[in-house]
């Protein structure tokens, strides 16, 4: 019984990954169609919440979203099933392409094409960096961290691992020095108290039809 549901989760995320091209956000409408509209396993709000969490945890956002959603459906086993389902199309398709790629590279036409494609990729990456700047808070602290990180990696060859840890620490220190942290903690705590109260009400009243805890009991 549980295995059937796990296989179902695997195949659903296999399907979702097959229609996701490119960035993590591309998966959202597809995940909504499959899990919210068709199956009603989660709510749209849940999906966006998992996506938000997925942006703040290590790993690829799309995979994180899949993992989180899988966990919400069937715990750790669900997380594993969803993750494996999500990465399988990539494994199959890319392995096939990669196995032929080396042979195609001998062909002159492909060499010309890919020499230009490499330039296009650089242009796409530059565009992504610009978009990141546009979406950022554009403070002088952000700019400072940007410049320091760029110099540290490009010229001082410091490992990106240390730079990520350093920037995380700097982010916390800067927010602390600006006096934002104390208020943020207060907001977070009161928000959590409200959430817990609401959750308790929902469980005792059983008024929320989308409460997946009820759905699982049907198994």
């Amino acid at each position, binding site marked *: 019984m549980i295995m059937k549901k796990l296989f179902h989760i695997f195949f659903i995320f296999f399907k979702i990954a*097959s229609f*996701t*091209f*490119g960035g993590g956000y591309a*998966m959202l409408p597809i995940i909504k169609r499959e899990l919210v509209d068709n199956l009603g396993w989660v709510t749209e709000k849940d999906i966006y919440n998992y996506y*938000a969490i997925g942006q*703040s*945890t*290590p*790993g*690829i*956002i*799309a995979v994180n979203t899949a*993992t*989180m959603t899988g966990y919400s459906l069937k715990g750790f086993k669900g*997380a594993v099933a969803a*993750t494996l389902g*999500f*990465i399988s199309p*990539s*494994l199959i*398709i890319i*392995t096939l*392409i990669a196995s032929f790629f080396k042979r195609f590279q001998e062909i002159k036409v492909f060499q*010309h*094409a*890919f020499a*230009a*494609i490499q*330039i*296009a*990729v*650089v*242009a*796409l*990456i530059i*565009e992504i*960096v610009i978009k*990141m*700047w546009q979406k*950022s808070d554009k403070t002088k*602290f*952000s700019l400072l961290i*940007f410049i320091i*990180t760029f110099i540290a*990696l*490009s010229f001082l060859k410091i*490992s*990106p*691992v240390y*730079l990520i840890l*350093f*920037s*995380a620490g700097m*982010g916390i220190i800067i*927010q602390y020095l600006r006096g934002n*942290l104390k208020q*943020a*903690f207060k*907001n977070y705590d009161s928000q959590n108290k409200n959430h817990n109260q609401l959750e308790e009400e929902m469980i005792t009243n059983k008024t929320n039809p989308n409460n997946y805890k009820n759905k699982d009991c049907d198994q």
Partner: protein
Amino acid sequence: MLYLTLFLEFFKVGLFALGGGLAALPFLQDLIEKYGWITAEELLNMIAISESTPGAIGINTATFIGYNTAGLMGAIIATIGLVFPSLIIISIIAHYFKSFNEHPLVESAFSGIRPAVAALIASAAYELSRGELFYPQNLTFEINNLKFSDLLNYKALLLLIFIFTGIRVFKKHPIFYIIAAALIGILFKF
């Protein structure tokens, strides 16, 4: 053992590549310099293909590098290594911290991480493009006969500006520009 190294290296990428999308790029670029598993050109090719096929870019690229390094087993190991840290961490977070992303420490940490990731990606782009655009080896030749075109791949630079302008103006899906570049490349024998 190559398999173990592959797993550990991609585990590291999965753990520290924060901020989604191409956040893994600087770490992959680091792998090039460290192990020489792939060249800069190959990495750029892989990114192009990963953008054009189903699945998240990061996964596709990991699978590709894993395959090139150690065959099918390598592809599987690299991909699983990449998703392993998040599988563990997210299971813990999902269990205990339902609003993890709103925690003040997390939010403030990411206010610092985000610009850093942008810088890492920009730096990686700079490194990867150097081989395409410049011919530094010609600097060692005599200065007398050195032409501008010996130092700079002006054809590549023009294409870069052209494609970039197209991206800014038309804002189409990346695969559009990859195909356009492919056609231009064939036409002008890049």
